[in-house]
Structures are given as C-alpha cells and as structure tokens.
C-alpha cells in the first residue's frame, strides 16, 4: 500500500493522502489528475469501479474508485475538486478508462461539472431542455421551471454532441458536432419495446441489417433516488434500494445495510448473517431464472418463459412465508433481519434444492440442447476480457469473458467465507457442464457462454444454500440498534455481488442522521454500454438476443 502512495507522490508531488479509510485515498489537484490516472492505469489499475460527483458547497468534487483486474483486492480512491462554481471544469479520464465516458456524462448531468476533453458531453439521464443541475445542493425542484414535457424531443436533440476544450487564453471553448450523418439509417429501438427489459432507448445505425453503431439513451426511468436519499434517514433509504434493481432487491439492500452497519460499528449476529446469505442466493436464483426465461422468450421460446416463471414462484413462496413480501421482500434491516425465519423455511428450502436441480436438467433438454438455439447463440455478441475490464462489465457477463470478478470471493461478506463454492468463470463453467454442449459451441465471451454461466451459477447457488441451511446458528436475528442511526463523519464504500455484477454503495456522512451524498454503483450501466462493441457488424435481429444474454435491468441504471 505504501508503494502505491510513493508512486502517486512521485507522479504528483502535491498529492495528499487521507488516513483512516478502508482504501488508500489520495487527493490530487485537477491539473495532476490525468498524470496520476495514466500512471495508475500503467500500474495495472485498469478497472474504474465508480465515479462519484460531489457538491461540497464551496467546490465540486469528483471521486474515482479504481481497482485492478489482476490485483483484485487493491482499491484506490482518487479525489479531485474544483472551486469554480460558475464553470466547474475537471480534465477527462475517458480516454484512460473507457467507461468514464458514461460516468462523466452522469456527473455532468447531475452537477454540471464539465469534463474538458470529453468527446461527448451530453446529459446522460435528463432531457437536454432540463433547466439546472438537480444534485447541486442549491437546486430547487419547481414545476414552473421544469414542467412535465408534452413533446418527445426531435432527433437533433439526441444527436448534437458538444465537447469542451480549453483554448490558449485559458477559456472554455464549446464545439458541437453531430453523432450521425444525414444519410445514416437510424432505427429507434425503444423506449417502449417488449424486449429491451425496461424503458431503454437504443438509437441504432444500420447498414442493411448490419448494426454499425449503437447510441443508448438512458433516463426514461430516472427517479432521482440518490437525491431523495439525501433527505432520508438510513432505515428509510433501505426501501428505495430494493426498487433500484427489483430482481436482486435483497442484495442491493444487503449492500446498504452492511455499509451502514460497518460505519456505525454494529455487529450483526451470526444467525442473521446466515439467513442473509441464504436469501441472497435464493434471490440470485430467482433473478437468473427470470434472466433465462426472458432471454429464451426474446428468442421465441415461450415455453421456456413459462417454465422459468413457474419455478421462480417457488422462491416467491419461500419469501412470502418468512418475510411477507413477494418481489419486494423488505426483509433486511440495519443490524440483521426484520423477523425470524418461518418454522417451515428450512424444509421448504430443502425441498426446493432437489426440485431446482431436476428442473435445470429439464431446461438443458428444452433449450440449451436445441440445435436452433445453439446455432444462434454460438457466433454472436463477443466481448473480450480487455473490453469487459475497460467497460467494467462484471457479474456473469464479465465472468463469461474470462474475468474473475466475483465480489463474494474478493471481499467476502456475510457468511460467504464459511462456505465452499467456485467462482463460475468461463473455464470453470466449461468444466462444470458447459462441455456437454460442445467445445465448438460455447465460445469464450460469446452469447452462449453468458447463457451457460448463468445456469451453472444457479447450481453453485444451490450448493451454497445446501451448506448453510442445516447450520443456521441459534441466537438473535437482529442486533440492538439505536433508534436514530447516525454515522460518524466520513466516507464509506461497500461492494456486494448481485446477480448482475458488482453493486456498490458509497455514503458520505457529516455525522448527521441523513447522509450527505449517496451513490449506487450500478452494474447494469456497463452492460448496456457493452452493447455497442458487442453488436457491431452483427445482425439487428441478434441485438435482442444479445441484450437478453446480458440481462440488465434499466431502473438500476437510471436510479
């Protein structure tokens, strides 16, 4: 760790280091940012996990959480800020980490921070005609300034791409270009489309039926959750996390619970840890089942959809008995879980495990082994490991490209360090069942690989549950928590592995009962941005299948 500090110090002598945090934290001046960033990238820090904008009242800041695809446990936090509130500028890192392209657009959208040198400074979520920057502390939501729009934007509004440079006099210069040319054939897929898994809008440039470029438009379900969290207490925030990515609600909630617990120094009883792990894995199975069902449905197999949904209902029943909720389980609370498990819980889960194993075999017979399905999935949607890392594509999709990025292994939480399980990367998947469908069909980083990783992960989740279900320790299911939870001033970051990848929560607290800033790192944003490199020169009909294999959830992106 000290080596890294020395290294940063050498690159930027003015850099300061913060003590006491979970990760190495360096504060660099905006002018030195690009130097340090490029230096870190050279050192192997190639995965930009999270980029957070921040309004410090007197200045605007940006926080970068950077990790490495090789030294997975290493995380470095870079901070920089600008005191100019009228025209805040910060140099871009979009050429160093590809995903910063989108992250910086988000920071611009929320805070109005202009990233100098960024090729595409459009808003990411809000409409171009939106007045003001909603996450600034002095923003006032007023319907007379921003009324409910009545017209859909013109195509030009989507395509005019501004970029900023600093000229010789030190002034900001704005240049505008068009994303597409007039002669281009653009097909709008979405925002209302049955197979975009939510309200995603893809502007797709076609030549014949070959895709040449995809420009995703977000924000159709931007609900301002992070901003709302700033005026809520911590237990209130929990309910919004489940509505981010409703298919892995419990895991998102787990992330926030852990973040608050660790910050407030609350010890979670072992019983709650075990229950949480079992629930997380059940949710993972339910989520993968929907992912599988919808992907097959997108490819035209409605039987598979019905099968997947039918088996998911079994998990919903288990939830319902214990927690009372179906889709929104609302079960985790700060300090443990809301109530003890139902007496039937253990038996129900034990019945479910062999049932699911049997059904998985049936899925393979029904769909995986189908030559038409295999033929379609075989040669499409390739994503190399380098691309996956650069775009931050984690979860099953990243692992299918051969990147081992399972947070359960990197930073074990809850009861994951007490169980034996394998991380399902491409190689692991091939040795565990992918091989049955042929070395020629399941190719590294392809659609079929992502499909198979998900199904094999279901088996692995069953294995985890099997190890835990008989050993749930006796004791409290919930620790004693103060009635009003106040976090000590500071910054907290917690990662979990949800069904789509690395989901993280960042909280900045000033010691109050409300957070000062909350940021959720959505794994799905990376998945959608990966569509462009994956679908280039593929047929448009395959776009739907490829997006199905990525299994993203749009409200998680838009937040």
């Amino acid at each position, binding site marked *: 760790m000290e080596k890294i500090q020395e290294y940063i110090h050498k690159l930027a002598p003015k850099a300061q280091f913060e003590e006491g945090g979970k990760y190495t934290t360096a504060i660099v001046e905006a002018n030195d940012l690009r130097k340090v960033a490029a230096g870190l990238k050279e050192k192997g820090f190639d995965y930009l996990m999270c980029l957070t904008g921040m309004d410090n009242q007197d200045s605007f800041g940006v926080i970068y959480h950077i990790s490495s695809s090789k030294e997975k446990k290493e995380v470095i936090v870079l901070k920089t800020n600008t005191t100019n509130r009228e025209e805040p500028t910060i140099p871009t890192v979009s050429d160093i980490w590809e995903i910063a392209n989108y992250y910086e657009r988000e920071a611009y959208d929320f805070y109005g921070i202009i990233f100098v040198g960024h090729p595409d400074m459009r808003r990411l*979520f809000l409409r171009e005609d939106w007045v003001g920057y909603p996450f600034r502390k002095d923003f006032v939501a007023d319907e007379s300034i921003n009324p*409910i729009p009545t017209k859909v934007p013109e195509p030009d509004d989507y395509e005019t791409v501004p970029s900023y440079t600093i000229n010789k006099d030190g002034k900001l210069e704005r240049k505008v270009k068009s994303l597409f040319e007039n002669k281009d054939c653009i097909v709008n897929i979405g925002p209302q489309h049955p197979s975009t898994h939510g309200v995603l809008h893809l502007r797709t440039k076609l030549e014949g039926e070959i895709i040449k470029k995809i420009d995703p438009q977000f924000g*159709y379900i931007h609900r301002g*959750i992070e901003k709302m969290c700033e005026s809520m207490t911590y237990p209130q925030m929990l309910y919004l996390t489940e*509505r981010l990515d409703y298919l892995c609600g419990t895991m998102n909630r787990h992330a926030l619970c852990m973040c608050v617990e660790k910050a407030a120094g609350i010890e979670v009883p072992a019983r709650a840890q075990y229950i949480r792990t079992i629930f997380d894995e059940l949710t993972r199975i339910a989520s993968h089942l929907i992912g599988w069902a919808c992907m097959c449905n997108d490819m035209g197999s409605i039987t598979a959809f*019905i099968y997947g949904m039918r088996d998911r209902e079994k998990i919903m029943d288990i939830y319902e008995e214990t927690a009372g909720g179906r889709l929104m389980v609302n079960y985790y609370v700060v300090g443990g879980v809301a109530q003890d498990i139902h007496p039937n819980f253990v038996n129900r889960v034990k019945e479910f495990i062999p049932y699911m194993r049997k059904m998985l075999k049936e899925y393979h017979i029904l769909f995986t082994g189908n030559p038409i399905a295999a033929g379609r999935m075989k040669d499409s949607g390739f994503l190399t490991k380098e691309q996956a890392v650069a775009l931050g594509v984690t979860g099953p999709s990243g692992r299918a490209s051969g990147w081992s990025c399972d947070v359960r292994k990197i930073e074990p939480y809850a009861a994951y360090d007490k169980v034996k399980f394998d991380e399902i990367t491409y190689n692991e998947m091939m040795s565990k069942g992918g091989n049955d469908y042929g070395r020629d069909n399941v190719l590294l980083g392809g659609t079929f690989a992502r499909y198979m990783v998900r199904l094999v992960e279901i088996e692995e989740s069953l294995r985890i549950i099997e190890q835990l279900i008989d050993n749930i320790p006796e004791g409290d299911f919930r620790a004693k928590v103060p009635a009003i939870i106040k976090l000590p001033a500071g910054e907290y970051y917690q990662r979990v592995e949800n069904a789509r990848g690395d989901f993280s929560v960042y909280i900045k607290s000033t010691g109050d009962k409300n957070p000062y800033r909350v940021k959720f790192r959505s794994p799905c944003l990376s998945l959608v941005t990966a569509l462009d490199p994956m679908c280039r020169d593929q047929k448009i009909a395959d776009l739907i299948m490829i997006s199905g294999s990525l299994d993203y959830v749009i409200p998680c992106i838009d937040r």
Partner: protein
Amino acid sequence: MEVKDIKIKSMKTEDFKDNEYLEKYIEELQKEGLNIVTEKLDDLINWGRSNSVWPFTFATSCCGIEFMCVAAARHDFARFGWEVTRNSPRQADVIFVSGTITYKMAPVLKRLYDQMAEPKYVIAVGGCSISGGPFKESYHVVNGVDKIIPVDVYVPGCPPRPEAMLYGMMQLQRKIKLENFFKLPKRPNISNGKTEEGGTK
C-alpha cells in the same frame, strides 16, 4: 338502487368493493333512457369485448415483473381472456401502466396512449402510477399518471400482488360489461393535470 348482477365467473357482486361507482355509472346511463334492441345487442357485444381484452406489453419498472407473473403459469390471466399481450399499441385494448412514469417518459406514454384504438382503457398499477408512490418527493417523477391520461382502474400496492391485478382486471371487465357500446363516452383529454373536456371518470 342495486347493481344489476354483472356476471363474472365465480364472483358475486357482493364480493366486489367499489360497487357505488358502478351504480352511479348505471344511473348516468339510464338517464337517457334505454333502447331494448340496442341494450340486448350491447350485452352481447360487451360479453365478447370484456372477455377478450388484450393488454399492451408496457412496463417501466418493478410492477412489470408482477405483470409478467400474472401472465405466466401460476396466475395465468389467459383464464380471463387477456392472454394475448400485444406489442403494438394499435392492437391493444388496455394499457397497464406498471411502474414509475418520469418526466422523460411522460410524453412517450401519452403518445402510446394516443396511438391505441378506441375503445381503450387504462389501468394504473402500483403506487408510482397512482400518485408517485415512494418517489413522490422526486424532482423527476410524475405524481400519478392521471395527470397525463385518464385512468379507469387503480390497483394499489408496491408492487401489487398478482391477485390484486386480477381483481383490477375483473373490475375493468365489469365496467366494460355495463357500457353502452353504441354510445361510448368520450375519453377526456388531459394535459398537465387539467381535464380539457368533461369526462366520465
């Protein structure tokens, strides 16, 4: 006045709530007098219409998953004749607004609604589309879809259980069964929360 028994399989009129609303509606219809020929014809047409309502595949967030559950094996809304979900608004009879409607989505939803052919119905599913729900305080959320489009049935919940959705569907079926097909009420035009023409909500 009692509600005339609107036949829904295995459900009695007393089993339903909100019967007053339908009573009022019947009163309104009877004011203008009834024509015995068209009434009988109405009954026949409405019997067909109410048992083949085709929903539009539209979902913005969480409630969409419960909508999928209603469509899938266990709850199976095919039992009510709703099974053909249409991907084009032109072919759909009812739109389930399942999920939050944001400012950016509002004009899109309005356009989709306008594209649907008459007679068309709207079911607002879940807290978000009824009033903004948990996101009421947000700067970017429309607090209730009835600010943009007229709504026939509200199904509360966050998200509503599939059973609740089925109940909402049956309520809509009951409404359809009462309607005067040859003199369908004009749907009000709503923009920014204001109704422009007198509607029959």
